[in-house]
């Protein structure tokens, strides 16, 4: 018996630090040949993308390049026309039935959505609920936490975004920046493995952008959640992201580290895009 135990332990010790850990780890998210059409308009023309667990990926690009659609697909708000998306090694929009891939049903989507969260450009807070209730509603109804557990979790999360003194207020009485911070807390409290931030500062007055970015920066530093940051804030993307993706016309044109993308853009599209941004 003993020998077996020791063997098992010995076995566990064997793997050496991999020189290329990314190759070993199962990707958190994987887009494979994903396209999306709305009627005759093809907004995504074949996206291949992998995100590792905990990886922060910034997605930049001109308006109408399909960035937001990409994020919305991961949140199951938009169904891919072709191709597949995997989350944590499992197909998101499809499931196996009698050896064939079929469209996922609501039950499958419900299970898969446990791993994904999203923060929206327009906050989409529930106007009929107090700040606290906005953040406790899903933990109670979806995760089945008790009122006390949910409130404890919510208050600590609202503390993290600096709003634990506004629990009883309604969204209508908050500033845009505060609303967005509540929305971030509301998404975080579900503890997703990957979170989509869809242009979360685009609807804010310029003086309120900073407080929201500060919160996101803190979350990013904590580490273990993968983040897809769809953004127009180039400096922020550069600072936070492990990898930057430049999309245009429904394709990923270029990707690399922030330094490669911002300091050494290779494609002409990206050079023009950054040029325009800097001159603004």
């Amino acid at each position, binding site marked *: 018996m003993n020998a077996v135990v020791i063997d098992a332990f010995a076995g566990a010790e064997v793997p050496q630090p991999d020189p290329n850990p990314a190759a070993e780890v199962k990707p958190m998210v994987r887009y494979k040949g994903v396209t999306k059409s709305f009627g005759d308009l093809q907004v995504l023309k074949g996206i291949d993308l992998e995100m590792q667990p905990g990886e922060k990926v910034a997605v930049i690009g001109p308006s109408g390049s399909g960035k937001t659609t990409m994020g919305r697909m991961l949140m199951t708000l938009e169904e891919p026309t072709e191709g597949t998306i995997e989350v944590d090694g499992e197909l998101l929009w499809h499931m196996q039935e009698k050896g064939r891939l079929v469209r996922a049903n609501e039950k499958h989507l419900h299970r898969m959505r446990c791993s994904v969260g999203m923060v929206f450009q327009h906050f989409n807070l*529930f106007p009929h609920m107090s700040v606290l209730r906005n953040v406790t509603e899903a933990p109670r109804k979806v995760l089945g936490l008790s009122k006390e557990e949910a409130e404890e979790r919510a208050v600590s999360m609202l503390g993290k975004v600096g709003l634990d003194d506004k629990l009883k207020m309604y969204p209508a009485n908050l500033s845009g920046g505060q609303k967005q911070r509540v929305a971030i807390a509301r998404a975080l409290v579900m503890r997703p493995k990957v979170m989509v931030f869809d242009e979360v500062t685009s609807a804010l007055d310029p003086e309120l952008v900073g407080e929201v970015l500060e919160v996101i920066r803190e979350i990013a530093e904590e580490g273990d959640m993968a983040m897809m940051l769809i953004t127009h804030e180039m400096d922020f993307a550069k600072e936070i992201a492990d990898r930057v993706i430049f999309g245009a016309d429904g394709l990923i044109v270029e990707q690399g580290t922030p330094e490669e993308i911002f300091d050494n853009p290779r494609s002409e599209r990206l050079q023009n895009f950054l040029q325009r941004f800097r001159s603004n």
Partner: protein
Amino acid sequence: MVAFFSAVLAIAMSFAAGLSRLSKLWIVRTVTAVYVEIFRGTSLLVQLFWLYFALPFIGIELPKMLAAILAIGFNFGAYGSEIVRSAVLAVPKGQWEASVALNMKPWQRMWNVILPQASLRMLPPFGNQLVELIKSTSLVYFITMADLTYQAMVLRNNYISWTTEILVLLLLMYFVIATLVSMAVRLLERKWTAGRL
């Protein structure tokens, strides 16, 4: 009595039919659309006659009270379903999306997120409908039910020279009831909106 029960039925039908019309299943949508169009497209009085005088010929005999409640309830339910439907559709798409993003089940999205917001929009038109409904209960006079109007008519037969006074009083009574309902609805509206919008 008739007014109360038919109002309850009307509201229940409004929600049932209003939500069915938004169903993903075309068969549910079609059946509901047929119901709504039939009850909206024909006169309430004829529906009342039909339930009370015509149904017995195919073997269904309804008590006056039930016939009145069903006719008024289904009729106003048909109108109300449009109120429910449009109020649900008027809730911004972002609210649906946020509830999907929080992984709520379809009925939780509807019940916890959409309906509470939609009800607020439904309140004023429902108030209107309710007043309309109360006034329409005078129609049950024609199936010889003893409602307010019927009583007034009896009274008038006995004191024919007081016809004007009796009918003015009748008008006033409907008016008072209607005003009370309007005020109650407005109060409710103010209470629900407090601090939220």
